[in-house]
């Protein structure tokens, strides 16, 4: 089975998805990332999906799960590079990917993570409206 590589750059783990996201690949990525975050102690994860033509509901949910898992492990996740066509399809399907932070490209994603780290811990201020909705992996308190 194909695997998505996870690269460590400074304090950030970079994942660039260049292959079709089949369900198994998505689940494997979820496991790999959790292990790597713990192993490296990184505080940020950037997932680049600019090569993805299709994001279905399963991939969307896996991304949300990854974001929730990494938050538990004290790492912030940013999904970057979503294509306009993908965004339009997701909106038409009514999937707004709750709990996922997004940026236009890797550079802006790194800026976003850097700002987060500066604000250090005061997550409440940074919480945007999208995060109000619950993600599947974290049950409501």
């Amino acid at each position: 089975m194909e695997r998505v590589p996870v690269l460590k750059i400074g304090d950030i783990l970079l994942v660039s998805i260049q292959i079709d996201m089949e369900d198994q690949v998505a689940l494997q990525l979820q496991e790999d990332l959790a292990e790597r975050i713990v192993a490296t102690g990184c505080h940020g994860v950037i997932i680049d999906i600019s090569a993805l033509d299709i994001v279905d509901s399963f991939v969307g949910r896996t991304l949300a799960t990854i974001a929730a898992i990494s938050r538990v492990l004290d790492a912030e996740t940013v999904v970057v590079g979503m294509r306009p066509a993908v965004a339009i399809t997701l909106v038409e399907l009514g999937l707004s990917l709750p709990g996922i932070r997004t940026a236009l490209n890797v550079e802006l994603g790194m800026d976003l993570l850097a700002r987060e780290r500066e604000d250090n811990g005061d997550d409440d201020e940074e919480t945007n409206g999208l995060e109000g909705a619950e993600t599947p992996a974290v049950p409501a308190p």
Partner: protein
Amino acid sequence: MTLSADEAARFAVVLEDHQEALVTFWTDRVAATLRGRLSHAELQRQNAELRRGFQQALAGSAQDLSGEAATELRAQLAELSATRARQGFSTTETAVSIFSLKDAVLAALDTQGQVDAATLRDYIAFSSFVDEAALFTFDSYVRVREELIADQAEQLLELSTPVVKLWEGVVAVPLVGTLDSARAQVVMERLLQTLVDTGSPYAIIDITGVPAVDTQVAQHILKTVVAARLMGADCIISGIRPQIAQTIVALGIEFGDIATKSSLADALRYVLTQTGKKAR
């Protein structure tokens, strides 16, 4: 009523024998209705060609316009109406160009002395053939005009949805005119593509030029904003006029946590303070 093979052949002969007088008479008639907007020489040439078309169709014993023998005539008629439609002539003027052939033929028959009953019956059959030709012209005329309108609508769509860069990292879409589904789709695609191309994390949607906001228009705008958010860009809606604000509230449209400003200037100031805060 269709032409019999005999009638067709007889008329082919008439058209051939009287061609000079026929074309002159016909051209005079058409020139009178068009009132000098086409030169006499040009009309003469067109009519001479059309006469040849009719003559050949009839000589090939075409019973009606849909037959094999009339293929060339049909092409000629379509060509004529297409040119007339583009030059801005009315439907009547275009149809009369064909109908006048009947007058011309009648005049040609008349010069032979008296017209007997048999000739008149022939003439009526022939005249229905010409009617058919004129109706065909009418159809092609309308088709060409519809194509023209569709082309123009498409061009207008292209023209009316610019995305402009306002500041480093800030783009704006000034919406002018009514937003229907087709336009909303074009606006959405173009805005999102520009966000990717320029890497701008902020977009301002200015609705000053939108005459009315109903639930459907609001839905389109909301979809655009949510799609932009998914891609990691923030949208601000600006240019909300007082009446529009009242309508929005009266209709119970919720913009949620999307920032709305009354003017484009306010929106730009808001974005700049936001980026200033983030860049500290």
